[in-house]
């Protein structure tokens, strides 16, 4: 039994028994992560009539994502995995989006805010480059790539995690992926008198 959580865009949770999706809850509110996270988790559990203590794996979307909400899902996932004593798996969300597609050559982008995109390229399901931050005007440079622009959610994260775990792909990295430094520069300290 695997519970997947994602707060890289909206807030969502999904429950898998092997490859079978048992239940899924999604809210596209881009700001209500802290408010919605517990409800999403408890609802997927109750919809499938599954108790939290029967979960065996937790998977979480680790970004990249532009919102501070990304951390809510990861924090909840870490606490769940600690509290339940089960393993935590990190899913780079562009991998999860790519996995949901069938195109041979893919450029996956998500909104990075500030007029930029998070991007990664895939060939036959294998990541060629990324994740990185790109300027939207440069997407045309990826000749031969099918351009997919969509958000991740727990369903995609969970499906990818189930497949990855079965195929021995390492999902051990659970730290958030930001791709940008904290938006701040050291202040030089200024004079107060003219």
């Amino acid at each position, binding site marked *: 039994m695997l519970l997947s959580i994602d707060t890289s865009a909206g807030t969502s949770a999904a429950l898998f028994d092997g490859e079978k999706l048992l239940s899924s809850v999604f809210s596209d509110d881009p700001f209500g992560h802290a*408010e*919605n996270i517990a*409800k999403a988790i408890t609802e997927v559990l109750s919809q499938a009539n599954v108790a939290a203590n029967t979960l065996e794996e937790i998977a979480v979307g680790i970004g990249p994502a532009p919102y501070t909400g990304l951390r809510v899902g990861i924090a909840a996932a*870490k606490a*769940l995995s600690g*509290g339940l004593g089960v393993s935590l798996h990190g899913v780079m969300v562009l991998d999860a989006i790519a996995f949901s597609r069938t195109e041979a050559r893919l450029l996956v982008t998500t909104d990075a805010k500030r007029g930029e995109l998070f991007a990664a390229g895939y060939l036959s399901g294998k990541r060629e480059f990324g994740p990185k931050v790109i300027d939207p005007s440069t997407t045309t440079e990826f000749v031969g790539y099918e351009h997919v622009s969509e958000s991740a959610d727990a369903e995609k994260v969970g499906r990818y995690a189930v497949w990855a775990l079965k195929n021995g792909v390492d999902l051990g990295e659970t*730290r*958030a992926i930001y791709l940008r430094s*904290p938006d*701040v520069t050291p202040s030089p300290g200024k004079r107060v008198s003219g």
Partner: protein
Amino acid sequence: MQLRTLSIEDLPQVMDLERRLFQNEAWLEQTMATEIISGQTHYVGVFDVSLLGYAGLKVSGPSYSSDVQTIGVEPTSQGRGIGRTLMIELLAVAKRQGSEEVFLEVKAGNESAIALYVSLGFEQINVRKRYYQPSGEDAIVMRMPISQPVVLGIESTCDETGVGIVRGNRLLANALHSSMDEHAKYGGVVPEVAARAHLEAFTPTLEAALAEAGIGYQDIDAIAVANGPGLSGALMVGIGAAKGLAVALDKPLYAVNHLVGHVGADVLERGAVEVPTIALLVSGGHTSLLLVRDLLNDTQLLGETIDDAAGEAFDKVARVLGLPYPGGPQIDKIAAEGDPRAIRFPRGLTLPKDLEKHKYNFSFSGLKTAVARHVEKLEDAGQEYSKPDVAASFREAVIDVLLTKSIWACEEFGVKRLLLGGGVVANARLRQEAERRCQEAGIELRIPRFSLCTDNGAMIAALGSQLIMDGREPSGLDFGAESTLPVTTVQTA
């Protein structure tokens, strides 16, 4: 029938019943009066038209225990469950006050009373021979254990990731991770840096707290988390973690106020909350003066800073003096060599014209500017100046305003107790001067140990525990981060 707390007005009725019940073993009126008005006791009575029964409990915070002092029921009303009602109320008070056990003594021959106590969960632990005089009857000593909740508290309002664990009012663990060093190069707390650090620090801090308390996840009865006031992105990490833990363990979750948490921290030092008190909370994020009449029900914000927090002023002035972040310890260090009266820096919002609107508010931004002007003027003129003197004079101005207003509040509201909290309490001069001024004004000064003064998870756990002991319902699962949560909201529903 009505059950209520007794006041001194009830004394004649209580004494009338006491004398009829206990005759030559009855308490003196003076003894009863002292008991009823004492801050360490709780006396309750059951009334219809007149008093039908009364009982009293004495709570000892430091020993986490309570003693049933007396209980008496009108002879004609015995057998109606009045004794049981009174005892249940006293046990609820004992639980609420953080007691882990309740003791009582009963006459060996009073079989119906002993049966009542046994039915409530008391067990005989001792016999005191010939305890009651002049009858010479033996006393049976009985004890009842009270199980207090184990609460895990999560703090992430600013740059400290804290996980604390308490059992009732008893501290079991207080693990902390600070991201202060990561903010040093920016000269102040950067919200995004703090939030990132919380996420990395959460699991190690949680595990450290469990190890320190020597308990496992299965021993936790409830989770508490500070959901404000604080930095929104930082708060969200703690909230996400708290919700994940609550769902994983299927335990109730309490969203509590960080500032009230600071006031409640003292409970872990003395086993009980002592109110009323004035509380001065000073840190890099807050400078607040509170009047607390009841920790859970009656906390009033008297004033707060209208610009910089006191700790922020220390950081900014440290930078003016070319000292590294955080500024507090740096300024404290060099100020030790300086003359606090060398320069008379302004005391913000203390002029007569300010008092009407800002008697209990603070302002430190003008002070910081005055220090900067002073230094720039001397530097421009190529003059040597004493950094220790500037530091000591600045520090004195901050401390003077903080304490002057705190003591005004103690006097105006007739509250002879002052509690200090927040990171700035680390300042040795603040503590020393607070002690001097409070002693002079006859005010009891409370300063919890430093690890309970700075932001920490134990104070959040302690406040959650207080709410549980008081019988409050848990918060829902859908609360969010409240960066400007008012101090009057102790718990978010």
